[in-house]
């Protein structure tokens, strides 16, 4: 036997039946299809995907809020549909932007209340609240009514709620939503510390921030349109791209460049352009360095003047592009009909 599995899914699928109004016929929407994941105990696992990819749906299934329409899933060794009570003793969940708790209660009171639902005796609950608040940096706001909190502070309160009950498996759905750069960094280092301290803790996190997945996660699953396209450590995912060369180029051009003529050049794999304030940023993927000279010639042909050109290391974003053929922010999740 290898290490015990904290989360396991087998051909997991979920179809939503949707109807926009009473008269319309029901349609089916495929939110998850054939998902097979194995997350080991002690792993910090990331789910990376664009809006509507099915991340939240997967988390809902694993936290016993939604049943799958096909396949099976286990959390901490228990079947999520057949033994929800056992699963619930061992998990907790925090979603970005959630508005849970009661506005008339203070932060401390809200957190204490949730601790009660997990059977944590009050003295211990209060000790932990104090300590977690100090780490997250909202100790001075513990006595503020939660309706008076800013988005960021509220999210920190939610995050404390998740860690407060010391779950075996913790689900974080976009935990840094609404946090500024500094606060996100704090939260990330907090998550890492929590994980490092005890090898039996497992954490599943969804995000659409590449950096978050890259910096934090032991393994990442890339998910799009309900399907898991790849699942490995960030390093190994990027390894697959070792034959490709990534350039970032800033040019000044009279108008947007003609993508097509660049993609025509043999050896150019991807070409994306992003207008910035007074220049145009280009993300170019090549099969070999030698192609670069032809690309530069094409710039001249389209009368674009190069400001800066740099070669860079591949990122998870490039992995996504390789898998989906589009950049993450370009993916339009058109409704997928099951039949």
């Amino acid at each position, binding site marked *: 036997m290898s290490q015990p599995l904290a989360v396991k899914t087998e051909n997991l699928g979920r179809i939503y039946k949707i109807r926009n109004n009473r008269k319309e016929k029901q349609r089916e929407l495929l939110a998850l299809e054939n998902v097979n994941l194995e997350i080991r105990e002690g792993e910090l696992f990331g789910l990376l995907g664009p809006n509507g990819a099915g991340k939240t749906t997967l988390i809902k299934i694993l936290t016993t809020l939604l049943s799958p329409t096909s396949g099976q899933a286990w959390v901490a060794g228990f079947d999520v549909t057949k033994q929800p009570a056992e699963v619930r003793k061992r998990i907790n969940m925090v979603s970005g932007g959630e508005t849970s708790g009661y506005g*008339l209660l203070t932060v401390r009171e809200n957190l204490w209340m949730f601790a009660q639902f997990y059977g944590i005796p009050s003295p211990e609950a209060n000790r932990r609240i104090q300590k977690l608040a100090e780490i997250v940096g909202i100790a001075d706001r513990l006595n503020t009514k939660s309706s008076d909190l800013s988005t960021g502070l509220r999210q920190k309160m939610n995050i404390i709620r998740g860690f407060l009950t010391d779950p075996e498996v913790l689900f974080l759905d976009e935990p840094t939503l609404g946090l500024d750069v500094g606060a996100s960094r704090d939260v990330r280092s907090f998550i890492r510390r929590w994980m490092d301290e005890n090898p039996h803790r497992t954490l599943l996190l969804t995000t659409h921030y590449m950096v978050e997945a890259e910096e934090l996660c032991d393994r990442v699953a890339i998910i799009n349109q309900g399907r898991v396209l790849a699942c490995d450590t960030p390093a190994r995912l990027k390894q697959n791209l070792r034959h490709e060369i990534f350039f970032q180029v800033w040019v000044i051009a009279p108008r947007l460049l003609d993508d097509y003529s660049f993609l025509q050049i043999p050896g150019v794999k991807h070409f994306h352009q992003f207008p910035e304030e007074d220049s145009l940023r280009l993300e170019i993927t090549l099969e070999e360095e030698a192609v670069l000279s032809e690309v530069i010639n094409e710039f001249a042909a389209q009368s674009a003047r190069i400001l800066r050109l740099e070669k860079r290391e591949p990122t998870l974003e490039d992995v996504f592009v390789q898998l989906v053929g589009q950049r993450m922010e370009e993916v339009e999740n058109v409704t997928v009909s099951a039949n």
Partner: protein
Amino acid sequence: MSLFPPIEKKRSGWQLFLMTVVGRSYPRVVGMQRERSWMFFDVFLPLLSVAAYVFVYRAIGAPEDYVGFVVVGGAMTAFWMNVLWSMSSQLYWEKEQGNLALYIISPAPMMAILLGMAVGGLFATLLRAIAIIAVGSLIFNVTYAVSSFWQLIAVFSLSMIALYGLGMMSASIFLLLSREAWHLANLAMEPVYLVSGMYFPVKNLGFWAAAAASVIPLTLGLDAMRQLVFASGPTLGFLRVETEIGILIILSIVFVTAARYLLAYIERLAVREGRLTENRR
């Protein structure tokens, strides 16, 4: 030193049940402390509307004991309102706000959460019931003639158990529906007042209608209480008090058990349909 020490001992079973009740009633109790406006709206104004029914009886020249009937009925209305608005419909708000999902994924039993909501609102309810009874005696000179104190206690407790059991059953539909259920709860006011005989002896509905109405625990509870506290009560009563106590015992057991199974069943249904987290309609 470890920053996040593991939790020594998490409670479970009945201890968890009690902690959950306390935990969920806390916001209600504290909320009422911090926002006093309910005193006027939830205690004083309902007092006036009960008084209106008293004066209707005066206007049409009813026997004085009917005034007492209205007072007792009005006091018991408070508990039905507590069941409907602090327990059942409250679940609608919890769902809209995202708390319901967190309750479901916690190991806390749903019945304890519901009970917590009701217990938290019980203070206002009791205050209202007591105010109505007090005003009834002081201003309307209602005279009580309690024939058996112990039976009265038994009837009241049993009606409450059955009533809150029924409330939990109706709360379960909120797991599945949202705004629709809110309307259904709203609908359960006047018709329930009507059939449970809040303002008149239920006997007057006729035997079969009264028997059907007895499914609502308030009906027999009120009827028995009136028989026990008013001199003319027994002549206007529907069934013998002992029989009514017997039926109330059965209702209590059935409703509380049914609530347990129904909550579990509807939760499974809601999980399947993905209704636990859907909101904003």
